[in-house]
């Protein structure tokens, strides 16, 4: 199992991880944890953001309406970052690191700054790629929060449960991503 897995083995491995997560805990999701991280930082700066409240369903409330929604469940996770979903996302970094160490697909020094297709199209200046990655990240997480999930939560976890929202999300995401990618990078 060295280098990149072919689609068949890769698909099985991916499918098994997603089903394992539902079997033992709950469907995989990632994008919520960006909110939790923001909340952790924000509540360090302004400690009044999250307060304990025995009347709230989760036991916590927040002055931010988004963190306060659904009985303050995000507020609770921000107050207790050592929870399943947050640790899960942190460990994704560890897993990829282990794969890279154990003969997984190798990225060159240049690839770690910008993929080859980017360098061919926009040149080797790292700052351009970093700016695009930053802008892309902002759009992706804003979109994911509006949609209530991302590629993991809506597309993979959603469609495996045959969730209607998962199909809606997937069609919408690809409907914009494909033409944008073709315009940005060409097909050569």
């Amino acid at each position, binding site marked *: 199992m060295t280098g990149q897995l072919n689609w068949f083995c890769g698909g099985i491995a991916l499918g098994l991880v997603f089903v394992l997560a539902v079997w033992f805990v709950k469907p995989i999701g*990632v994008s919520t944890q960006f909110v939790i991280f923001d909340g952790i930082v924000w509540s360090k700066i302004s400690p009044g953001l999250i307060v304990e409240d025995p009347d709230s369903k989760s036991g916590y409330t927040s002055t931010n309406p988004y963190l306060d929604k659904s009985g303050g469940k995000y507020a609770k996770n921000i107050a207790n970052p050592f929870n399943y979903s947050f640790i*899960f996302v942190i460990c994704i970094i560890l897993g990829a690191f282990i794969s890279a160490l154990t003969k997984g697909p190798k990225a060159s020094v240049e690839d770690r700054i910008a993929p080859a297709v980017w360098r061919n199209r926009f040149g080797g200046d790292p700052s351009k790629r970093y700016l695009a*990655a930053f802008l892309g990240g*902002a759009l*992706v997480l*804003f979109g994911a*929060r509006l949609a209530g999930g991302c590629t993991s939560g809506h597309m993979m976890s959603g469609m495996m449960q045959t969730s209607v929202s998962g199909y809606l999300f997937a069609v919408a995401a690809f409907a914009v991503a494909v033409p944008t990618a073709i315009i940005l990078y060409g097909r050569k």
Partner: protein
Amino acid sequence: MQIILAIIIGTLFGFVLHRVGASNPQRIIDMLRLKDFHLMKAILFGIAVASSILFVGMSFGIIESSHLSVKASYWGVIIGGLILGLGWAIGAYCPGTGVAALGDGRKDAIFFVLGGFVGALIYMLVFSSVKSSGLLESILGGKSTLALTQSSYPALIHTMPGIAVALVIAIIFGLIAWLLPKSAS
């Protein structure tokens, strides 16, 4: 126990994302510009595998249907998906693959994740106006599925057993994965 599971499943997820090439932005761009369907085949087949095992597991009572978590459908899902699609093509990462790419030592992923913190923060700040716009009101039955799931989620196809519907969908996904060419010219 939950934390141990988080460590095991999270690490496995990051490992597999990296091994399948999903944390490589080149692979994402080549999929999105319809040039290399490796990742698309892996994703479709992954959904087919996961869905088949899930529905078979639930019908044998091995996987508890209370573990399911179906997300609601509302206009924001579609609009959010469109916005995410734009950022996906520009940044060439998704939230999960961007985090995985950090473990691969990719510097552009650091900027993607930082941008992600900003995007999520902006949403937190505008949430009240989004909510009052009605974009978050349920459509299509809210937390609905196509196949019956033995839980309280409404199913659009409720005249057939859930496992049959789910397996037919899984076979279609698997067939598309199989028939898609590896690459296009």
